[in-house]
């Protein structure tokens, strides 16, 4: 069916479309993929559709809520630290020492093992200029890699997809979760998300027709694929974006900068889009859903985990990612998250539980990948939207702060402590917060250039010095 449609329309499509640059978001990814494969010379040279078992993979792990970095990578020997945190301060006995000054929170035994075996890098004091203390704004800054006074439409991973993965399979980016993170927002929507692969499908419960085919499922497929031909025709029509006569609903919505209503591009709350009606976007998603659900279920059913993960949401997410990697899904970016770090009140038990979950889950993930033989291909990078104030608050918690450490995990990383620990001396603080030493975009640049092997400037907007991390 899919092939029929693409073959019917391919010639016309190729005649009117320059691959790589003019692929509209309304073109279903599987068709784009097919065309790219057929016309590989026409594709943009920056395109890196790498499939199979040799591409590097980045796993982004979001610690949502603003993790208290100071009690995660702990300056246990520092007097200023203990003065600012009479109740929350951790002593030398309570931490897992990394050196004579700094230790990991005692719950992070998994990370300590990874550190000792040379698989963990701690980037100290990561932040950005003019830090914002709002969860949403700061998360947005991290997700879009923007300056703190600028609002970017697209996410940094979305810009990676746009720049480097045009025409790729929709599974080039996979989020374990119900919604795509803002980091994935792209000019050409890319990436899929789900929580449970068993349910990632259309469930038929109708009658079976001749040959045992389910009639409901057949009808569903046709009713959701039938538009493919039209989508291609529309995308390949040269008049599409010039027609503004207000009669054809499709044509009227194609002007990308029309902010007067009628364009999805104007949807402030939703994912930014260029032109198109809401229903066109949904058609595209419906096609991606059909194609990817088949791929994902096949792998999840056939691959076994080879490590024991803690029973937690993060554990389950990484368990699933390990399966998908083991099964050879052509994914470059996986995105998982762990919430609950917004510890304004009674921080000690909450952070203890979360950091244990984090350390144990990532350790199990690494063991699993090692058993698969995929360890050298995978890099895990953690981030949180901000750290927390140096001084504890009156409720046994900490309030929103600024800089915090990031963790980079993998057997190719430059293991150890990277950067320097920001000073906790009161005169060195900015409004009660430690100052960052490393801009997070230096870390992103390092990941993009040395791990994903692509130029970082087009993705990050400026040339940031790539942090040497592998």
């Amino acid at each position, binding site marked *: 069916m899919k092939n029929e449609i693409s073959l019917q329309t391919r010639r016309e499509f190729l005649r009117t479309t320059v691959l790589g640059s003019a692929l509209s978001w309304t073109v279903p990814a599987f068709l784009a993929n097919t065309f790219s494969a057929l016309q590989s010379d026409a594709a943009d040279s920056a395109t890196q559709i790498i499939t199979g078992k040799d591409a590097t993979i980045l796993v982004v792990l979001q610690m949502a809520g603003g993790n208290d970095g100071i009690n995660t990578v702990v300056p246990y020997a520092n007097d200023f630290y203990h003065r600012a945190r009479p109740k929350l301060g951790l002593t030398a006995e309570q931490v897992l020492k990394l050196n004579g000054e700094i230790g990991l929170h005692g719950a992070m035994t998994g990370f300590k093992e990874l550190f000792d075996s040379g698989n963990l890098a701690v980037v100290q004091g990561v932040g950005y200029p003019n830090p914002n203390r709002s969860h949403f704004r700061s998360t947005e800054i991290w997700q879009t890699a923007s300056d703190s006074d600028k609002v970017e439409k697209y996410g940094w991973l979305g810009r990676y997809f746009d720049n480097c993965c045009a025409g790729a399979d929709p599974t080039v980016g996979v989020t374990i979760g119900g919604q795509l993170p803002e980091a994935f927002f792209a000019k050409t929507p890319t990436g899929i998300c789900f929580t449970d692969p068993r349910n990632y499908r259309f469930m038929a419960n109708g009658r079976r027709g001749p040959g045992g085919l389910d009639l409901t499922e057949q009808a*569903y497929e046709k009713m959701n694929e039938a538009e493919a031909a039209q989508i291609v025709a529309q995308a390949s029509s040269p008049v599409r974006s010039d027609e503004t006569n207000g009669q054809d609903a499709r044509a009227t919505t194609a002007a990308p900068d029309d902010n007067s209503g*009628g364009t999805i591009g104007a949807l402030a709350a939703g994912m930014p889009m260029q032109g198109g009606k809401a229903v066109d976007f949904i058609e595209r998603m419906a096609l991606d*859903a059909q194609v990817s659900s088949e791929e994902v279920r096949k792998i999840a059913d056939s691959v076994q985990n080879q490590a024991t993960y803690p029973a937690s949401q993060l554990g389950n997410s990484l368990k699933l990612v390990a399966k998908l990697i083991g099964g050879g899904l052509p994914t470059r970016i996986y995105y998982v998250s762990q919430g609950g770090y917004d510890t304004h009140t009674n921080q000690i038990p909450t952070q203890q539980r979360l950091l244990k979950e984090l350390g144990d889950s990532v350790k199990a993930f690494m063991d699993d990948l090692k058993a698969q033989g995929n360890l050298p291909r995978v890099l895990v990078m953690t981030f949180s939207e901000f750290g927390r104030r140096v001084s504890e608050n009156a409720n046994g918690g900490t309030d929103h702060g600024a800089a915090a450490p990031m963790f980079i995990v993998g057997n190719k990383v430059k293991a150890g402590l990277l950067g320097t620990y920001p000073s906790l001396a009161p005169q060195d603080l900015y409004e009660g917060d430690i100052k960052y030493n490393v801009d997070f975009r230096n870390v992103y640049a390092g990941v993009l250039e040395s791990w994903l092997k692509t130029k970082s400037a087009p993705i990050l907007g400026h040339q940031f010095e790539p942090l040497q991390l592998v």
Partner: protein
Amino acid sequence: MLKPLSADRWNDETAAHLLNRAGFGGPPAAIRELADLGLDKAVSSLLDYENIPNPTRDPVWAVPDPEGNKNLRDAIQKATPEERRQIQQQQQRLQFDRLMELRGWWLNRMAKGPRPFQEKMVLFWHGHFATSFEKVHNVYYMWRQNELFRRLATGNWLELLTFAGQDPAMLIWLDQAESRKEHPNENFAREVMELFSLGEGHYTEKDVTEGARALTGWSLDRLEEKFIYRPLFHDDGIKTFLGRTGNLNGNDVLAQIVAQPQAARFITAKLWSYFAGQPPADALNDALAAVFRENGNNFKPFLRVMFRTEEFYAPAIVRNQVKGPVQWLVGSVRMLECDLPPAPICEAVLRSLGQDLFAPPNVKGWDGGITWITTNTLLARYNDAATLIQGAFPPLAASDFARKPGGQGGAIAERQAQRLRIGGVSVDKIVSPEELADKDLLVKSLEHRLLQTTLRDEQQKALRDFLDTKTKLDNADVQTAIRLVMATPQYQVT
């Protein structure tokens, strides 16, 4: 600008649009009725809901319980650690049960109640002052906040902002209850400006810290379960907030916010976006904000103008809004004239679609728009349609049901779920014998009821091919056909 829609454009199509947006849609007969009223009366029939009797009773636990709270506190103090854990577990189960009941209670008001517009506004305010049970941990507070939104749904901006700030759930959610002069907590002070009233860039960091100082003293009496002003917590010093200087308090902060022209612009833009499906152009929003201010910052007269303007019925607005999960569920129930599924099913369905009522992802609320649609939420919509129409409980919802926090896991929950009765759609009620006998008529009737437009030719053909596998259709075939129409991209927009 803001000219009323001309009378010759008021018809079934525009009436359906009004009912879809200002309410949750309805069956063809309801649309016809609205169309017959004419624009002004149709708008009033939705907006002037005060005189429509509302039969819904409050949940039995929806009263403050100082006595019970005191007993519980004493019991916890006397308990051994083991007993304490048991009490905690018991309380948690109780809260989860009540949360499910509350969700069902509210959805029932939306799907079956006589005041859909009021509930649509409550849903707006819930998304706007997005407060989550995940932190509040008290269903009574969540209900109270919901009732507040209902009582002031179309009232005055300053009054609503003030009551929302003093609302127990909000006091916990944004930590105002913990704030005192020695350590002012900035969470509410910041979010009230950033997310509730002004937007980023319309205040300074200094306004946040000064506002937080002024707001100290606003607190929560946890035994009596109500707002309390604690003078000992209040910072009596001089503060400067948004240009006003003095010994300001919480009321001054909110009054000063609402005095900013931006506070009107911010909320009119958000209301327009919610109802029209996309943000207003600047000129349009200027006009909308002017109407709002001319009407004393009262929502009702502003909304009456909004729902009558021709801009609201522009072709680019109509049928171009992605249904949110609640709109999808409630709207389907209204259009199909079927029962609302039992609360556990509704809870599982909305979770699978990405909108847990009383548990928005963060204080920013749900992003909405096309972010509702991912590959997996789309498949969930297609599958949940089967639950709703055929009364079947597919594994999807069952496993989400099993994942319910505090719920029983795995196979037991799935079996339990299977026993829940879901009404499904009564085909006899919505399809005439003539339509059942004539497949062309049937397809037309389903398109009219479910989409208020037509399927594409290829889709029509696929649906006809399905129906043509049988010569004589029974009710189950029609149910499947309904599900198939619901499993199209077009059904996901309104």
